[in-house]
Structure formats: structure tokens, C-alpha cells
């Protein structure tokens, strides 16, 4: 076993020393693998960033209540009386002003994008004062909260970056009203940061919604009491509601786009990988061909086939790993934190999010590169050991 490993090490070490002589074909294979991994990681980081935005800050103790049968807040509707019943249900955190439950409504408005000037849908959410406390990570970055009853809005930092006219102090004409931007808020990168918030009662009257809301966000005393709390609401004869944890709701909302982006990204990367495999094959065939006499000489001296095979494969995998690591780092440098906006098909409004190159994605990229290296090295490795020694010595 020891001298078997010694054989592998010996062949591998002088194979690697010949790399400078083969820099052309190695560079082309490396570029291929770097490209595949960078694209794979880059595209998947879009899905990852989108999902994070949708799921982040989804505290286990925050619950969303909508009308029974509604898949999204857009499709939901709750009367004020219903929201009061919900807010008075046992199990909700109380503060000095009452239960931490915010009855909210949600309309979609049009604003021009800063990047293109074209109009896009932006969610305008009417909230109650408890909204700030229900969402654990909510903070005003600039300015102040809106004053209830006044035509004031606060803007999520994602929306402020993405849409024109949402700078602090600006006024925005929406419908019949002119709304003044009095604050910019953050919510740990969550989907809320893509929204504009105002007073729920004011929004009801501005959009003639009567005394209707679409959802209630509330904070449970104990996340473990979720099932009991849910049962209380479902068993209340005055209510016909759907009760979800905030995380479940966001996961439902993100699944369509996440799957689409991930599927598309993987498909693109797979197609590119086919090209990269040919690049690796070419490199390793060149490597084997240029060293066929050396390999044949070693086999004549008594080196056995498996160390030759393993060392050729190992060289290919090492090259692929280098390509994978560089591709991953490139994707990290180029994409991580890159902000973009896309349509959230569940709310028909824009979600701003940052691409996120996670360690998982980097591992996936390196795994992908390894697979390319293995496939690309396998055939040349088999060729190296299947060619009769006498023939290889004669060819050289």
C-alpha cells in the first residue's frame, strides 16, 4: 500500500511539474471550469438571495392571519371586527398599549425605477403601530416613523434604492394623495424593505377600502404555542381564517421564483459543464499524449496501472478544483451583495434583494468542478493505462 501510494505521488509530482509546458491547454480548461462555476454560483446566488429576503426575519413567534382560502395577502380580506377578534385571542404578547397585533392592508402602486425610468409595481402597506414591534428587526435608519392620520410614508431601504423619488423629504403623488417620505427603515434585509408603509386607516380611506384589512401580523408569547393559538382561531365560530407562521408564508411565496431561478441556473450550468468537460478532456488527453513515453517508461519499469490511472485522474481533479475555487471566488467578488429587483409573482410587486453567495453555494460549485474534473480525466486516464506499453514506447 505504501509503495502504491508512493507510485501515485511520484507520477503525480512530475506530472504537476510539467504543467508549465502545457500552460495553453491548461488555461483553456481552467477558463471553462471557472466560467461554469462562476455562472452556476452566480445564478444560484440570485435564488439564494431572493429566498433569504423572503425568509429572513421570519421569527418563529410571528404569525400571519388571512382569510380562509387566501394564498396571499392580495387575495385576503378581513373586516375590522374580525381583526379585533384575532387581536384579542389568548396567546399574543401584550405591551402597555395592548396586544402586539397589526391589522394591515396592502395595495400596489406604480413608481419609476431609478435604473430604467420605467414604472414598476411597489407594495404600499398600511400598518398599525404594533407593526414595528411585531417585526423584531425593524429599525428606522433615517428620519422618523410616520404620524398616524397624516399623509406620510416610510420607505424600506431596498425600495428607496430601487425606485425614484423615495428619498427622505420627497413627496410622492399616489392616487389622490401626496405622500411625504419621513423615514427610511430596515428590517434585516427582509421583504419588508421592498415596501412602503403608511398608516392603515389613512390607506383605507385613500383607496376607499372601507373598514377592511387583508391580514393581521401578530407576535406570540411563546412560539411553541402556535398550534394551540391556531386551533383557537380556527375553532372560533366568528372567524373563517388561515393561520400561518411568517416563515411558512414567505417560503410559500418564494418557492415559485426560487425553483425557477435554481432550475434555470442549474440547466445553464449543466450545458456549460458539457463544454467544460470537453475542455478538461482535451487538456488531459494532451497531457497523456505528451507524456505517453514517460508513462510507458514508468509502466515498463514496473509501475502498475492503477497508480497511473489515479494520478492522471488526480491531476485532472486538482486542475478542476483550482478552477472551481477561482470560479467561486470570482462569483463571490462579482455577485455577493449585488442588489436587484424582481417581480414577486405572489404579490405582483417588485421585491428588491441582494444576491447571496453562501458557503453552501461555494461548496456546490467546487463539487461541480470536481465532477467535471473526474469525467474529463477519466477517459484520458483509462487510455493511458490501456495502451500497450510496447506500443507506447514505440510511438514515442
Amino acid at each position: 500500500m505504501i509503495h502504491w501510494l508512493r507510485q501515485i505521488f511520484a507520477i503525480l509530482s512530475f506530472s504537476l511539474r510539467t504543467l508549465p509546458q502545457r500552460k495553453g491547454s491548461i488555461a483553456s480548461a481552467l477558463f471553462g471550469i471557472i466560467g461554469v462555476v462562476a455562472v452556476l454560483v452566480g445564478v444560484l446566488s440570485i435564488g439564494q438571495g431572493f429566498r433569504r429576503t423572503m425568509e429572513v426575519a421570519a421569527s418563529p413567534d410571528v404569525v400571519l392571519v388571512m382569510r380562509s382560502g387566501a394564498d396571499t395577502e392580495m387575495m385576503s380580506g378581513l373586516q375590522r371586527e374580525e381583526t379585533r377578534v384575532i387581536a384579542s385571542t389568548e396567546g399574543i404578547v401584550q405591551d402597555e398599549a395592548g396586544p402586539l397585533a397589526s391589522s394591515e392592508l396592502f395595495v400596489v402602486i406604480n413608481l419609476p425605477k431609478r435604473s430604467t425610468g420605467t414604472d414598476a409595481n411597489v407594495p404600499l402597506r398600511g400598518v398599525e403601530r404594533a407593526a414595528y414591534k411585531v417585526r423584531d428587526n425593524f429599525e428606522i435608519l433615517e428620519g422618523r416613523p410616520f404620524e398616524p392620520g397624516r399623509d406620510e410614508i416610510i420607505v424600506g431601504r431596498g425600495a428607496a434604492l430601487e425606485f425614484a423619488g423615495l428619498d427622505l423629504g420627497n413627496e410622492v403623488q399616489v392616487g389622490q394623495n401626496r405622500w411625504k417620505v419621513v423615514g427610511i427603515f430596515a428590517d434585516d434585509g427582509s421583504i419588508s424593505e421592498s415596501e412602503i408603509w403608511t398608516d392603515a386607516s389613512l390607506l383605507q380611506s385613500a383607496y376607499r377600502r372601507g373598514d377592511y384589512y387583508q391580514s393581521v401580523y401578530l407576535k406570540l408569547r411563546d412560539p411553541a404555542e402556535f398550534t394551540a393559538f391556531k386551533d383557537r382561531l380556527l375553532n372560533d365560530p366568528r372567524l373563517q381564517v388561515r393561520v400561518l407562521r411568517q416563515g411558512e408564508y414567505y417560503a410559500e411565496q418564494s418557492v415559485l421564483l426560487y425553483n425557477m431561478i435554481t432550475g434555470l441556473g442549474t440547466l445553464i450550468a449543466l450545458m456549460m459543464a458539457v463544454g467544460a468537460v470537453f475542455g478538461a478532456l482535451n487538456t488531459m488527453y494532451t497531457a497523456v499524449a505528451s507524456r505517453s513515453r514517460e508513462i510507458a517508461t514508468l509502466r515498463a519499469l514496473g509501475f502498475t496501472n492503477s497508480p497511473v490511472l489515479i494520478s492522471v485522474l488526480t491531476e485532472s481533479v486538482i486542475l478542476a478544483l483550482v478552477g472551481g475555487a477561482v470560479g467561486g471566488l470570482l462569483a463571490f467578488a462579482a455577485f455577493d451583495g449585488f442588489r436587484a429587483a424582481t417581480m414577486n409573482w405572489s404579490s405582483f410587486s417588485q421585491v428588491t434583494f441582494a444576491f447571496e453567495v453562501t458557503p453552501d453555494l461555494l461548496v456546490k460549485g467546487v463539487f461541480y468542478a470536481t465532477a467535471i474534473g473526474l469525467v474529463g480525466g477519466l477517459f484520458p486516464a483509462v487510455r493511458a493505462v490501456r495502451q500497450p506499453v510496447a506500443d507506447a514506447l514505440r510511438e514515442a
Partner: protein
Amino acid sequence: MNDIASPSAEPASPEPADSAETLLDLRGIDKTFKRGSEEIQVLQKLDLQVPRGEFLALMGPSGSGKSTLLNLIGGLDRPSHGEIHVDNHRIDRLSDRKLATWRARNVGFVFQFYNLMPVLTAARNVELPLLLTRMNGARRRKHVATALDVVGLSHRVKHYPRQLSGGEQQRVGIARAIVTDPQLLLCDEPTGDLDRKSGDEILDLLQALNQHHGKTIIMVTHDPHAAERASRTLHLDKGRLNRED
């Protein structure tokens, strides 16, 4: 010197003149290659015995089967028919893996173009066959030093092949061939790429290895001058051993 056998005559006796212990015994060897649908018979019903300690030269025109015969003796190829016994072991039926191990222990190869690894120093090249043994680094270095000393290259230990002359490279090749102390040295045109002076030095070395170190040497050569150094010369023509000098 024996007469040249006519094509219709029986092949010349491949047995050596003396009755020393036989190291190599080839019996009824046929070797056929396929080229497309055509079959080419390279060696035909060839018998050959080589006693231990002999220096045998194999001569013959190109395509006569010299290198093929050397490859069969060295376990680099297998006969289509017949048996190959080396030191009373039949080698033509060994698996690839066992044959590789057998080669590592019993045969040293010397190639026409030296076949050194260009990225390794002379010492590292010579060390290669020892990587297949259980020797530790210190013992390997000692053996390498001895082998390089035998071929007169102690002063070139750290030189790379490109820094050595052709004759020196071939000496490194010979050092690599003898470093495991094999009983059999197989040399394929060892002077074919060298000028006369360097070639003579290599032949001197091979002769010394044969005479002073007891190595059995089989050398393929085109060069009658080189063959003169051997104790016996066999001529191959159209796959048959035809003449014995």
C-alpha cells in the same frame, strides 16, 4: 562463426555454445499483430535459450522482430503462442499486475532514447524503480549513489537530463536499469542515438556490467561494431533466428 542459414534451411540452433545454467528459455514463440483485417506474423516458432551471465546481441533488419522479441523477454508484451521462462518462472501467463511486479524485480531496461523524466534530476530518475520497493529514503539514496558511481556519474547527481550529454543521459538510463540489481538487462539500441565515442563508452560500461557484475545482457542493435562486444550474436530475419555468430 556459423554459416548464414538459407531461407529454406531449418532455423539455426539458438542454444548457446557452453552448458551454463539457462536463465532465459523461449519455446515455440509466435507473435502476430493485427493491422485492420490483416495479420502480420512477426515472430515464428522461435526457440531461444540464454545462459545466466551471457551478453547476447540480437541483430537484424528493421521489421525483423528484434524489438518485439526484446519486449516479450522483458514482459512488456505477450506471445501469441509459446512459452517464456525466466529463471524457471513462466512469465507469459502472469497477470498485468504480476508482470509489472516481475519486471520491477528482475529486469532493467535501457532504451535507445534514454527515456528519462525531464523534470527529474539524474538521482531522482535513477531512484524511480526503487519507489516500487520497500526501501526507505536513506537506503534508496545509498543505492542511487552506488548505481551512479558504477556508471561514473557521481558528479552529475543533481543535473537534469537537459544538462547532460547524450552519453551521460544513457549512463543515467543504465544506472536506473541496474539500481535494483536485476539479473537481466535488456538494451534496445543503447548506442543508436550516440556518436561513436559515446557509444563505445556505453558498450564498455555494458561489457563491464556483464563481466564484473555478472549481469545477463540482451542487446538489440543494428550496429555490427556494437554487436562485436557481445559474447554471442543472433540474427533475426522475417521472424526467425537465422544465424548465430
